[in-house]
């Protein structure tokens, strides 16, 4: 027994959350990040935090970590020099991709940079057919030559992708063996291990991204593990993956591609914790920062999983939480286009020079300027007085927009916030309405610096009745790390008709996946009684190309299993597309096994309820634009940290805290719950 530690390492701050298992005590610590080597801030921060509590590193029983190292390396092109070995005739597939151009109308748009330059892509003779049989054996001599060439060219990493490697692994395995003989110091990724599914380009892209990031991630985790060991921390460290589960550092170092969405998925995991904390509500998360916004939908305590996504232009096949990102946030610039309409984004003012109100010389208004002018944000200071702002500069910038469209500055600023809400609505519709979910059945969870500022408008636009604002967004992510299961996913692809399938065949497919899961459980030292698995299969009508994920009931596989699959598939197809095709053949495509190890999760203790009157937290008043009234009205200002459970803040009001501001509009009220979350509802 001891402390469980969650560390969320972001671009600006490293948030550390400590939870004492015996007492349920929660402590929070925040230190500036060290972008050149994030492990420095992490180890010193954890040491400081433990020191403050009078605890020793030996007392840490669990260490969970969310990181943007892999994502940032991908965005900034800081991966290593990588070579590619492919089936002869197909080495350029990496560059051709799906042969579509990056933008339909913009003839000046560029494709994302190809991660392996052409001279480092080598085709080797070998060919497997679609049934897994070998038409042409691997030319091992040619492969040996390729390995030597890549070594001579100075690559650090090699990706191997042969056609149909998911059906016949021997050629890639031979290539791995030869590379380990000829080029043992290289980081090597083979597609049958990284993404054993059909569609060769996406599999190749995933394998290449993995190889490109491998040495970066390996180096980072190596540093972090060493510094943690040096400080005396013995607990096995774990890392969040894009699927929201955690894995050990060894697995993460082999499969960095599985962690590219570690950052945003940590936020979703945190929201899951929040859902559990507040009685299992279904949630839509709205994490709005300065330049981008992430949204996700959580139903029944789970976030939908997708098998593939395009991350910064690179297709990646890996189990990922269904998180939708839009490139818009508080720093998005506002302009009037040549047709006379107001547009928000896609350009952003960034941290410097930042919005016009910062006074660093920008004259183009941003969303933040609209909020400062309307006084949703304190028109004098942000960050509780740490950063002065200039409302007059915001006004001057906004006036250029207002004049062009013939509106008052206030109307234009108000309109800008409506456009932001419309853009965000579009993103939320993708993960809700487009997947067959009605947002009105969900609670909106607002976090990120700008989330609580815009949440009420967004909720109104989507007719969502409830908004939840957690105590501190950054810390929430760190807390989420303490509530995550250890999990990973295994998959294999083999087409089979549901009508003619033999139950024992299906059982054998899953038994194979179970064996792989057992090996993983053993490598992570998971006791037998904590091991959990769940089977799903991707199903479609024979001839379709997009599958619907269907749960496969546990227990014996027999005809009734098939009936259950059929039922769930037909219901899912009808929900998504509004029709089923009676009598058409139903086909099974990819079999998946989710392996999960239940960890002892942190449980947060409720605080005692106080009075409903929030007067104790009242810190002032100011005029704030009231959208309903179409004018500025006096709003009460409350300090978030002074609010106690039971308090009810009636709108219109503003609730201020260091890292965000919550707008409670007229007609809504905000309750403080026993975990200090704000719950906003119409009254």
């Amino acid at each position, binding site marked *: 027994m001891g402390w469980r530690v969650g560390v969320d390492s972001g671009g600006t701050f490293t948030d550390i959350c400590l939870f004492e298992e015996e007492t349920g005590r929660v402590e929070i610590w925040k230190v500036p990040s060290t972008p050149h080597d994030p492990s420095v801030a992490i180890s010193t921060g954890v040491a400081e935090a433990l020191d403050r509590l009078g605890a020793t590193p030996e007392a840490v029983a669990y260490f969970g970590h969310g990181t943007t190292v892999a994502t940032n390396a991908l965005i900034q092109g800081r991966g290593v020099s990588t070579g590619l070995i492919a089936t*002869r*005739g*197909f*080495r*350029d*597939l990496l*560059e*051709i991709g*799906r*042969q*579509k*151009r990056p*933008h*339909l*109308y*913009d*003839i000046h748009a*560029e*494709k994302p940079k190809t991660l392996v*330059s*052409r*001279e480092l892509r080598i*085709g080797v003779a070998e060919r497997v057919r*679609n049934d897994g049989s070998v038409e042409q054996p691997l030319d091992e001599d040619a492969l040996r030559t390729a390995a030597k060439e890549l070594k001579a060219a100075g690559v650090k990493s090699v990706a191997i992708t042969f*056609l*149909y490697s998911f059906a016949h692994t021997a050629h890639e395995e031979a290539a791995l063996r030869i590379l380990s003989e000829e080029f043992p110091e290289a980081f090597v990724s083979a597609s049958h291990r990284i993404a054993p599914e*059909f*569609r*060769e*380009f996406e599999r190749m892209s995933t394998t290449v991204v993995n190889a490109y990031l491998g040495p970066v991630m390996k180096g980072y985790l190596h540093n972090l593990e060493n510094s943690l060991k040096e400080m005396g921390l013995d607990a096995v460290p774990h890392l969040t993956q894009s699927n929201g589960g955690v894995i050990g550092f060894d697995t993460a170092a082999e499969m960095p591609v599985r962690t590219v969405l570690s950052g945003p998925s940590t936020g979703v995991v945190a929201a899951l914790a929040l859902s559990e904390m507040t009685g299992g509500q279904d949630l839509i998360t709205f994490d709005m920062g300065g330049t981008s916004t992430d949204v996700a939908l959580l139903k029944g305590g789970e976030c939908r999983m997708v098998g593939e996504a395009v991350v910064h232009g690179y297709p990646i096949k890996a189990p990922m939480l269904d998180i939708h990102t839009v490139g818009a946030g508080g720093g998005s610039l506002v302009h009037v*286009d*040549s*047709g*006379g*309409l*107001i547009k928000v984004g896609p350009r952003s003012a960034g941290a410097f020079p930042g919005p016009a109100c910062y006074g660093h010389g920008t004259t183009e208004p941003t969303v933040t300027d609209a909020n400062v002018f309307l006084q949703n944000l304190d028109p004098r200071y942000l960050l509780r007085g740490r950063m002065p702002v200039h409302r007059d500069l915001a006004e001057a910038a906004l006036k250029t927009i207002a004049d062009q469209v*013939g*509106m*008052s500055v206030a*109307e234009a600023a108000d*309109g800008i916030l*409506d*456009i932001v809400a*419309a*853009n965000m609505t*579009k993103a939320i*519709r993708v993960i809700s309405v*487009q997947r067959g979910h009605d947002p009105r059945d969900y609670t909106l969870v607002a976090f990120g610096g700008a989330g609580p500022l815009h949440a009420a408008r967004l909720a109104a636009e989507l007719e969502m009745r409830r908004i939840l604002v957690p105590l501190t967004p950054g810390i929430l992510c760190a807390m989420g790390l303490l509530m995550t299961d250890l999990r990973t996913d295994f998959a294999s692809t083999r*087409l089979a008709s549901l009508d003619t399938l033999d139950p024992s065949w299906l059982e054998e497919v899953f038994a194979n996946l179970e064996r792989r899961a057992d090996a993983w459980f053993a490598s992570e030292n998971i006791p037998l009684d904590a091991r959990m698995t769940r089977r799903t299969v991707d199903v479609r009508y024979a*001839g*379709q*190309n*997009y599958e619907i994920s269907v749960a496969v009931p546990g227990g014996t596989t027999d005809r009734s299993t098939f009936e259950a699959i059929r039922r769930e598939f037909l219901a899912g*197809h009808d929900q*998504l*597309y*509004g*029709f089923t*095709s009676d009598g*058409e053949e139903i086909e099974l495509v990819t079999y998946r096994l989710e392996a999960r190890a239940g960890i002892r999760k942190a449980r947060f203790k409720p605080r005692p309820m106080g009075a409903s009157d929030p007067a104790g937290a009242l810190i002032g008043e100011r005029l704030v634009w009231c959208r309903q009234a179409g004018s500025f009205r006096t709003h009460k200002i409350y300090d978030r940290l002074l609010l106690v459970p039971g308090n009810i803040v009636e709108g219109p009001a503003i609730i201020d805290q260091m890292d965000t501001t919550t707008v409670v509009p007229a007609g809504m009220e905000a309750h403080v719950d026993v975990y200090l979350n704000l719950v906003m509802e119409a009254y």
Partner: protein
Amino acid sequence: MAQVKQNPVTAESRSLNPITIEVIGSAFASIVEEMGETLVRSSYSTNIKERRDCSTALFDASGHTLCQAEHVPMHLGSFIGFVPLILKKHGLVGLRPGDVFIGNDAYEGGGTHLPDIVLAEPIFHGGRLTAWAINTAHHSDFVDRGHAHIYQEGLRMPPVRLYRAGDLQEDIQDLFLLNCQVPRERLSDLRAQMAANRLGVRRMIDLCDKYGADTVEAAGQELQDYAERRMRAGIRTIPDGIYTFSDRFDCEVFEALWDFSVRIIVRGDEMELRFDSPPQSRSPMNVVRTALLATVYYAVKSIVDPSMPPNAGLARPITVIAEEGSVLNCVHPAAVDGRLTSCQRVVDLIHGALAPVLPERVTAAGNGSCFDITFSGQRPDGSLWVYLETIGGGNGARFDKDGLDGVHVHMTNTSNLPVEALEVEYPITLLAYELIDSSGGAGEFRGGMGIRRVYRAEQACRVHYGGSRMRSQPWGLDGGLPGASGGFRFSDGVTPFLKGVGTVNAGDIIEVFTPGGGGYGDPTRRPPNVVQQDLREGSFTLADATVFQSKEV
């Protein structure tokens, strides 16, 4: 400046302020996008589910585009003729919710070639026609046919009701399916098209419930006015003047070379484009007027302002003239199946003409074609199979960057089919899919590289291939050299094809080379370190390096 007192904002004017227009415009865009996803994800045929050869759109009640999803620009041609034809043929009287019109004909059905089948459904709100949901999908069917006139090219359908007030008209469907070579796929794809429109109808009704149908309709009109303003603003950036360009067109169907030319008159914020082309021919390369319009709208939008919304308003300042009965404005009974390849050349003409005044916005010639290959045969159970694909090539180099390698250019933008999907579904094996060394035109910025794709037939089948730039080369700009021509090659023993059509046997090999893009700028200005990288990468070989000769190579 004097203070101007603002007029009080009334409820009416408020409902149509620029914010509402923007919000409703964004809703239209998300509806057509969602319709497109539904169509792709629930369809069966490889041409739609993987290659995404389909488009979705919303139209206003009178048949003007409100919004088109970003799939295939060519498909706009099928849309702009369709709703007006329905209104002309059937009128508003008797039009009911749940009616669904199907059609494809190039002369009486609003289409641009017969395999693009359009489905349109009226959207009613409060008992009034408010808008249309419409989509088109390229059905891989009607293959292995003649192209002397349109009667050889497939079943011609004017807009007729496939559903009447929600009830399937099985006799119409049966008639259509009996004329199809792969009826099972056709039926399933029609279901996917239905699902896409149903969704569009539902979403538009929700939108009208929320804002009121009047507001949505008014915003639709405002958005068209807005696109018009954007287009006018874009045209105004082009100096007034007369700009001309001409080019040669070749294809696999005939020996002749056609002369295409354009004369563009820019005056203020308006533009007139006058095209000259030979008389229409007994070949599939003819283009109906709606296809020409879709091509011009695409080309001008992509050159002057790619971000303007794709609706009918952008067409207002543009006048398009081409003689009736010529290749670029054909009339009944000209065959039209290969119109896309001709249209690709029309885009090149417009770029070429505007290059002297908009050098930083146009590109050198792209592959100028849409190489396609179609395989068809019979399965052991007697049913037929059809596989069609189109292959990208190089795009033209730009003012300040190289052209894109191996992409679909201009009027099309379909995906390839993964090898691992193709070989499961069809008796074809892919032997190579790669970029072609030295195929991009040299220049300070080089043209994009073409693609080499090699097939092996695993059973006897009929094959059709088509394309252009096989006997000419995509031109460069400002001293840039032309890209390489494309072509087809067969293994020994294959009986020579006639007009791109023939038979292959099991084991025969077909090799396709698509053209590269033209270069931009004098090659001697290409920096030596970049040339060295070209040589390392093989985008140029040492034999080509002489064009960079004033530099050390």
